[in-house]
């Protein structure tokens, strides 16, 4: 099946007074219909930026400086504002992080649903209202027929995120970009929201890009995972392979830093150091100053995504040519 979303070599730049910062560089991935792609990484790795670029809402002065974004085979990264506006909500739905701030406090949830649907679909007021109630029911809001006239502040955080999900889905988009949809919620609610997203996406055959830094959510929901580091994809592959046997030293470190529940540990494994600032990305592999397996080539040449068998990782360890150069590092792997 052809992918819903194809991102090809995406590059996002921020022109600043001190020169141009490259926030995303060479990001490529696909999402198939009904597939959930998890995107993980530390803060500032470019996860949310990728989502914003796809829905065409990069914060100025940020701009797409290279590459392509294709939705159902059509380029959308270079569309004029008005055409892109019609795609937003209609073909790409978005879910934001904090349900307490994503709903307009002065409009009822029904009105926000109705205006969204009427923007994209030819519906009469009555039909739109009926559908709004239907959507609220579908996302699990009790007594939807009454709650449709409630204001956002009359709902709890979890209920509001359900409303946000209904708003993202109400014009039946083919792709959902969910940016940390559960981060702001209580842990007990997170599971419900994830289950809801998963069910709805499966029912409607909606593809989903799920941005999060919560590996639990990813393991639970995603079919494939992309690990991002400093504006590039470090590793991408099926969720099972990445979680169980990550190949890139960064993703391996990320997975090792998840505390195990079944035994007691004295120390949580972490990754030494922190992600470089955009203005000071090291030469070669961006991860090289923090990498335990670093060797000469890592500091000079930047690795592309290489086949590792189960996943694809941007790491020279998986280039057959590197092995001879640096046999001593292989002990650590």
């Amino acid at each position: 099946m052809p992918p819903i979303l194809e991102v090809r070599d995406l590059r996002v730049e921020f022109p600043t007074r001190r020169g141009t910062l490259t926030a995303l560089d060479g990001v490529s991935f696909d999402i198939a219909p009904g597939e959930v792609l998890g995107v993980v990484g530390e803060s500032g790795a470019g996860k949310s930026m990728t989502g914003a670029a796809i829905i065409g809402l990069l914060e100025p002065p940020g701009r797409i400086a290279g590459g392509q974004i294709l939705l159902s085979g059509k380029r959308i990264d270079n569309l004029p504002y008005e055409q892109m506006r019609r795609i937003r909500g209609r073909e790409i739905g978005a879910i934001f992080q904090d349900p307490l701030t994503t709903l307009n406090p002065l409009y009822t949830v029904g009105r926000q649903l109705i205006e969204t649907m009427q923007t994209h679909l030819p519906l009469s007021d009555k039909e739109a209202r009926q559908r709004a109630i239907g959507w609220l029911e579908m996302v699990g809001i009790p007594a939807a027929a009454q709650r449709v006239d409630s204001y956002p502040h009359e709902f709890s955080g979890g209920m509001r995120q359900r409303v946000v999900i209904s708003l993202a889905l109400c014009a039946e988009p083919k792709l959902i970009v969910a940016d940390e949809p559960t981060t702001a919620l209580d842990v007990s609610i997170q599971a419900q929201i994830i289950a809801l997203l998963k069910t709805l996406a499966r029912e409607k055959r909606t593809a989903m890009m799920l941005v999060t830094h919560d590996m639990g959510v990813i393991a639970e929901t995603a079919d494939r995972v992309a690990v991002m580091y400093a504006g590039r994809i470090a590793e991408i592959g099926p969720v099972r392979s990445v979680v169980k046997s990550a190949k890139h030293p960064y993703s391996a470190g990320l997975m090792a830093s998840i505390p195990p529940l079944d035994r007691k540990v004295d120390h949580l494994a972490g990754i030494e150091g922190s992600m470089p600032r955009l203005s000071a990305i090291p030469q070669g592999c961006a991860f090289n100053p923090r990498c335990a397996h670093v060797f000469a080539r890592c500091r000079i040449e930047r690795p592309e995504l290489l086949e590792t068998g189960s996943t694809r990782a941007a790491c020279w360890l998986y280039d057959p040519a590197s092995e001879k150069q640096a046999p001593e590092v292989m002990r650590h792997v």
Partner: protein
Amino acid sequence: MFAFILSRILQAIPVMLVVALISFAMFAYVGDPVSIMLGQDFTEAQRTQLIKDLGLDQSFLMQFSTFIGNAAQGEFGLSYRLSRPVAQLIGERAPATLELAICAASIALVVGVAMGVYTGLYRNSWLSRAFLTFSLVGVSLPPFLIGILLILIFSVWLGWLPSFGRGEVVQFGWWSTGFLTWSGLKALILPAITLGLFQLTLIMRLVRSEMLEVLRTDYIKFARARGLGNRAINFGHALKNTLVPVITIAGLQLGGIIAFAIVTETVFQWPGMGLLFIQSVGAADIPVMAAYLMLIALVFVGINLVVDLLYFLVDPRLRVGRGAAGGH
């Protein structure tokens, strides 16, 4: 809602009493009305008679309660200067001030909000920069200077508009209006601009900064992500969210416009309450000053009540007791 209005009216009573006390203290301690009213030649008998007529021989408390009682009935005694009932004098002058204030406030609100929205949306356009520069003029130049400059340009040099007075007025019972005659309308333009300019620039700057604030919020980003049109976002979602602070400031400014029309009315010799007040100050005509003070206090109290009610209309979060918040 009714209970809220009632409680606000009850809260207004002490405010009005304090203002009444201050007004009354002016009666009692500022200047000597007796000598003003008697003029140069008088007998001792005339003097005692006048003191008795004015009730000045009674105790302070007694006088104050009489004053309150009369004030509550809209009775503020006789003007020392004009020897006519104060209520009647103010009643004659009120329409002029109110019409001027309404025009000034409308200009300030309509133009101020429009310019504020524009400068908020297109903050880098040259027109926005021009508006902002212009607003500095409005904020920093005092109204009397603006009034005089306007007179110089439009009355003296260009000769388009009258420099003083109210033009012809039409009487409707006790209300005199300048809205219905050409000369009345022409006479309104310059004073209304002078009076409203400061508030206009203030509202413009307020709306602008609120718009910039609101346009950064998540719900505006989410509205864009839902594909809503620019008009729905800017004028529906964004503008409505800027309204609460704008209503607050605009309400207080409207009170200010009525209360401080004094300067503008003096510059344009506008026959309103402000001019009456200034003339009364010159003649130590305390009953008029006291009545004016209380009237302005009443206007502020009334405007605050309206502003509070408008909050309820605009912001559903303030409407308490309407539907309980749902659980998970």
